[in-house]
């Protein structure tokens, strides 16, 4: 009930403000605690070697050492790691979206004998832990001569049952009357796929794309066993190698860590609307 008495309104305002203030303070404290490691990371990356490990988080008399970043770039081909990671993740994402969308269309919109049996087989492979496949897949890679190549990272990740499943569920929610309309217009199945279903599946494609890109960009196990030469390293493997070669130079290590974390934060801030929606959608469908 809206009240017109100014004193009562002020009272209500103040109570609401007090509640909101308390909430803001709690949220700030939690966010602050979660953020402390990053503050330490950035500050340490700007310290001089002789000041690393001192109690003060800030650089001391030697001042801010922006040169640490240049030194990291000199010591390891950091940019190269980025390029490799982004290249592999982009290729996997592209291939996976294409192959999954085609397969999902076949499962969701076409009728053919044995379709449901094959789909059940697809579903059952989703339950298998990736770990089961690692050992034999590595033997396959040796056989194909793809060990220590970027193609060896891309190929096994490009075809998944999960992507097919996600997109099939999405395509099932598109009304079937569209197919009939297209058929009456004399459109081929390909036209139906390309001009009708694919554009309508965009949110699903975006979700799958984001999941796949992030997953591949961060993947660790497979690149770790596959890559041997430094110029082919992806970012996580390059960081791990730098950690074991320069583990004592905490300031340089933190500079490298900062350089790998900051771009991700920027990407997240830019894409967060899409991402959040995608995650919430993916959980419902997946």
């Amino acid at each position, binding site marked *: 009930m809206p009240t017109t008495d100014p004193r009562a309104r002020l009272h209500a305002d103040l109570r609401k403000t007090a509640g*909101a*203030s308390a909430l803001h303070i709690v949220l700030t404290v939690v966010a602050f605690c*979660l953020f402390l490691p990053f503050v330490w990371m950035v500050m340490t990356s700007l310290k001089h070697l002789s000041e690393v490990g001192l109690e003060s988080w800030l650089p001391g008399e030697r001042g801010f050492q922006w040169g640490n970043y240049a030194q990291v770039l000199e010591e390891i081909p950091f940019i190269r790691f980025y390029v490799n990671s982004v290249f592999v993740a982009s290729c996997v994402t592209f291939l996976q979206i294409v192959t999954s969308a085609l397969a999902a269309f076949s499962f969701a919109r076409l009728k053919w004998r044995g*379709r449901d049996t094959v789909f059940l087989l697809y579903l059952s492979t989703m339950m298998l*832990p990736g770990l089961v496949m690692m050992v034999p897949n590595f033997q396959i890679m040796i056989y194909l001569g793809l060990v220590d190549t970027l193609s060896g990272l891309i190929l096994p990740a490009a*075809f998944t049952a999960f992507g097919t499943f996600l997109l099939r569920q999405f395509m099932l929610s598109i009304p079937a009357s569209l197919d009939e309309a297209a058929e009456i217009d004399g459109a081929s199945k390909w036209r139906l796929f390309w001009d009708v279903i694919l554009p309508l599946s965009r949110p699903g494609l975006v979700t799958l794309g984001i999941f796949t890109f992030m997953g591949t960009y961060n993947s*660790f196990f497979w690149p*770790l066993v596959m890559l041997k030469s430094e110029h082919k390293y992806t970012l996580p*493997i390059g960081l791990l190698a730098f950690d074991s070669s320069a583990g004592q130079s905490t300031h340089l290590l933190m500079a490298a860590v900062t350089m790998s*974390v900051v771009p991700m934060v920027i990407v997240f801030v830019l894409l967060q609307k899409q991402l959040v929606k995608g995650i919430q959608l993916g959980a419902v469908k997946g």
Partner: protein
Amino acid sequence: MLTGLAFLAPNIVGVLTFTVFPVVFSLTMAFTNWDLTQHNRFKPDASIEFVGTDNFEEMATAGESFSLDSKFFRFLGNTLFLMMGIPVSVAGSLFAAMLLSRDLRAGGGRRYLWLLAGAGLVAGCAVMAVLGMGGAAMVLLLTGVAGGILVGGVTLGQTFYRTLFYTPHFVAGVATFILWKKLYSKETGPINQALDPALGALASAVNTAPAPVVGALPWLAGLGMLWLLSFALGRMKRMWLDGDLGLGAAAMPLALLSVPWAVLWQAGLPGAAGWLLPIGAGGVALVHGLRAARAQDRFPGRSADGFGSAFMLATLAMTGQLICLGLVIALGRLPAMAADGLEPPGWLNNYSYAKPALMVMAFWAAMGSNNMLLYIAALTNVPPALYEAADIDGARPFDRFWHVTWPQLAPTTFFIVVMATIHGLQGGFEMARVMTEGGPAGATTTLSYFVYQEGFETGRLGFASAVAWALFLLVFVVTLFNWKFGGGYADD
């Protein structure tokens, strides 16, 4: 038929090559003695042979006979230990989501909040002045960060905090593992630098405090343990009486609740605590059991009902009890330890502290994770009418949570816990590889790291495959479980 297959072809060729074939291959390998140190081009005579279930037998044996000390069971134990962080993380995510879902706007617009942010900054500066100029630069830095967060939150609202909460999860990976390795460093890590003076003060406080006060501390922790047990049992009894929890569904939560007491029994506490605490627990269980049995009007329900709620409650209570048990033991030893002066441990290099250290880090990354986003979405779907009805009934905040929010979120919670369990069973590889290499003395080796060690370091491909399949069986059991008890949530 042909069109269908044509659309399917690119994907199915890949899936057959890189999923189906490896699966068959791997299953075959699991029954062979394939070992790269035995079977390679330098030893043309050695051949790979089928060895039946030898690999699986080796997993379960240490020496000659079946033993829980075998590597496999030890590493399974490590994995399960690390997974105890899951309920805490889920609770953290729910807490964060509930905070973020509240109305962050103040009455009368934002101007009050600006005043608040200003007051926060002034308070920060005051803290700085009080602490003196010695650490001034650092206090200024931290106050600046906190003030910045507050101002950002006041201006941008929920999205701003959500972004900050989500960041640790989003960037989690090798980079943050390296960061945390440095944070945990024994000599130069900021965690120990902050703990050192605090522990020094604690030691002198313990040394000067009267003995009965110090002696009472473990008993307080013990009481906490009993209270948690009583709370969880009481809630479950209530649910059972209301017909919300069936006996079938209650079995596993009850078993979980008894785990800390089994651990206590194993640890064999010295002194009176060793028998008083178990007796207390027995008493608590007996009282709740009798009350439940003597209740007249039980609302009938199905046997599998309410599993999700009871399970979450029991896992949380179990974790809380285990923490209390740890406190009982640690506080019992405190006087002796304080006499020599307390020092912070070398977290990742210490057998007892390595796993908890990893769990703290995992919590940091998991609190604001996808689970929080899912909870935020689920919270917006709770019908406001339910809260209004609760308010009319005069519900206290806890009742509002327990009788409205929690049941409404049950499907989300169930989904999150099942997914986290499946991931948890296969997890821990990255942390172990980057931060501890599975050590010290195998304390942080999980099953996935075990597969890596055997398959890619020692080259025992057959054995590694067998371990991977054993892991699959565990995941499969969880999935079946999901089908059995998750069915009730499928319609939501």
